[in-house]
């Protein structure tokens, strides 16, 4: 038990080395680009940090990160079994629209109202993801392509439904406003109980709690259930999983459904917490940020949470840049560099560890007369 714990603690620097390296590289690239664009990198970073570290900015960053956390979870569940759900973007937008439409027509007590909308969103997200799952299982279509293409189809479907079916008035281009029973309360009251008062105007969305619960649930699902075990085994070694009686077709379908259901929830923090209706201006792009966040967080809820917070912080603190005359798109580049360099850094660390393990094996087998077998995988 103690050994296991010690081994885990020894692993922590390794797990942090790659993201730290990635952040450093992103900073280097951003510095070079800022300098090339004629802005002072040092002043830019200081301005970003000063603005980003303001209490209201931090609260806003946390609120933003909830969406990325949910989208990242949805992506990560599939990544863990080497399945690629690139369609979170379409799934969450379609789900948010349907949930908004359903919620506007319901008259229920507060907790139930929100619960029903969550259920609608999860069902919608799962149904949209199921198309890709069935295409893969029945027709052998790569889920990477089908989920990508379904994003574009979802854009068309959302625009059609919004304009022709759900639009409340003739000109608004959005669904009817949700009744107050479907508004998610903020956590300011709870924080006040704990002795924390937020500065004027800032409010910590209630979705933070929900996301935390979901994160724990996904962690337990992946590590403490038979399904999670089968899922991880399929990802690590599909052939071994099949030999052990795991039905790959069933795993593909169930995993995509779970992923789609989580993706469906990703639009709700904004819908229930701030917007209270689905309009043309409903935020887009969180699905793709979710992919980046999942990769940075190594596909575990515990890793995705800080990754999502980082991305939320970066986007919030970038808002000051336009006022300073620096293009805020520098943050998008930083996010891209972080993603690429983190996957590279992890591969490098993994290889170093494998070489170290191979050396250990050789050291232990050398005293025997027989030559050590070649370590590592044979292709």
């Amino acid at each position, binding site marked *: 038990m103690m050994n296991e714990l010690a081994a885990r603690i020894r692993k922590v620097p390794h797990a942090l080395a790659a993201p730290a390296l990635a952040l450093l590289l992103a900073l280097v690239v951003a510095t070079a680009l800022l300098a090339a664009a004629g802005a002072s990198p040092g002043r830019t970073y200081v301005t970003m940090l000063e603005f980003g570290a303001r209490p209201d900015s931090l609260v806003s960053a946390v609120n933003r990160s909830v969406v990325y956390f949910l989208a990242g979870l949805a992506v990560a569940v599939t990544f863990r079994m080497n399945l690629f759900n690139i369609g979170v973007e379409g799934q969450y937008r379609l789900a948010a629209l349907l949930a908004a439409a359903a919620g506007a027509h319901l008259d229920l007590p507060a907790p139930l109202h929100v619960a029903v909308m969550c259920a609608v969103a999860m069902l919608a997200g799962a149904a949209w993801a199921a198309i890709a799952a069935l295409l893969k299982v029945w027709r052998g279509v790569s889920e990477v392509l089908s989920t990508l*293409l379904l994003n*574009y189809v979802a854009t068309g479907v959302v625009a059609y439904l919004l304009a022709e079916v759900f639009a409340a008035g003739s000109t608004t281009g959005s669904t009817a406003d949700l009744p107050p029973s479907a508004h998610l309360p903020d956590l300011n009251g709870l924080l006040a109980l704990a002795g924390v008062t937020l500065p004027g105007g800032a409010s910590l969305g209630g979705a933070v709690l929900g996301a935390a619960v979901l994160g724990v649930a996904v962690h337990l699902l992946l590590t403490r259930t038979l399904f999670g075990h089968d899922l991880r085994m399929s990802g690590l070694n599909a052939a071994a999983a099949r030999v052990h009686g795991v039905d790959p077709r069933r795993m593909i379908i169930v995993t995509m459904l779970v992923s789609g259901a989580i993706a469906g929830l990703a639009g709700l923090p904004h819908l229930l917490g701030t917007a209270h209706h689905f309009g043309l201006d409903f935020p887009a792009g969180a699905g793709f940020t979710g992919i*980046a966040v999942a990769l940075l967080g190594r596909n575990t809820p515990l890793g995705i949470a800080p990754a999502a917070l980082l991305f939320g912080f970066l986007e919030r603190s970038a808002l000051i840049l336009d006022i300073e005359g620096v293009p805020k*798109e520098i943050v*998008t580049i930083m996010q891209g560099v972080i993603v690429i360099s983190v996957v*590279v850094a992890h591969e490098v660390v993994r290889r170093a560890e494998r070489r170290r393990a*191979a050396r250990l094996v050789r050291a232990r087998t050398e005293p025997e007369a027989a030559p050590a077998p070649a370590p590592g995988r044979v292709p």
Partner: protein
Amino acid sequence: MNALTRRPALIALLVLLAVAGVRALTGEALTDSGTVGAALRLAVPIGLAGLSGLWSERAGVANLGIEGMMIIGTVCGAWAGHFHGVWAGVLAGVLGGAAAGLLHAVVTVTFGVDQVVCGIAVNILAAGVARFLCVVVFTGLPGAGATQSPPVTGDVGTVSVPLLAGGAGGGDLLGDLERGGVFLLADAAGLLRGLLHEVSWLTVAAVVLVPVSVVVLWHTAFGLRLRSAGEHPAAADSLGVPVQRMRYCGVLISGGLAGLAGAYLVTVSSGLYQEGQTGGRGFIGLAAMIFGNWRPAGTAGGALLFGYADAVQLRQASAAHTLLLLGAMLAWTAAIAVARRRPRLAAGAALLGAAAFALFQSTGSVPTQLIYATPYLTTLLVLATVAQRLRMPAYVGLPYRRGGA
């Protein structure tokens, strides 16, 4: 394969009959040279993206970053095109795409990172780079903004075939036939004239790249080595093929082709850079490649199919409705053609045709928002139909390391 696929002339005739029949029934311009010309223009970026995927995947590297490489191609093409003329724009687009390809190659080939993951990351990074460059380079210039560039100076120019399609020296034989309006003859003339009349030089270059790819990949030692890196890298390595270098070549050429596709969008299609201009064509190109079974000619055919569907609905919104009827006719034709050999497939095709026909009958028009989704739906439908009969390069997606460590 069945008897029909061995007779391309017969298939072409059947398809022509179906298209001409629908044209005569509905009066929509399905076969006029304008529509076909537009189809060709729309097919070129898709086809180039498809070729881009082909070169990379034949070398054993899955390339989902084509979309991102195209985006880089559009920005670079617009920048050089504005300041140094249109051909410099084309060159810059190719180089920019190749630079993005180099990044993909370093990450996937040298570092052995999962190729799908890297492709997605390239797309995310490219979108950010494009937006940053657009703001930094283009703002303040006349006609530009945060999401679009100033217009490209000059244009690529077009060519028409003499005698047949009104080229230099006069004579427009096909045009005369088309205007004659004889059933089938006029349709065939319109289809041909669309491919030969006022074709951009860059389109000509893109079309030439198809046979060039065939020759280089299948009839040279370099091509054989490159394909062996995608089929069985360990065996290739044991015979002295520099697998990693071949994979670098494939991905670099792939990036260049994707960049060319982006440059085409900037210089020929719209004349300037706009954010979101690529519109998923990189992915549709990949679908065209899969449709074409990882072969250049098939890829070009797939690109033309997508381009045609695009062109018909772009020219007249009402014509998208007609495509339903056309789909029904084609499905029934296919059902009759394979009825004896593959009864289950024929039944499926007949059912699909019936569904399309029922949709055609029960609806008056297709909503414009859903028309936007047609190319992507077509792609999905095609993938669902053909995916199982395809053979991809055996080692696509798998990193290769000498000695397996």
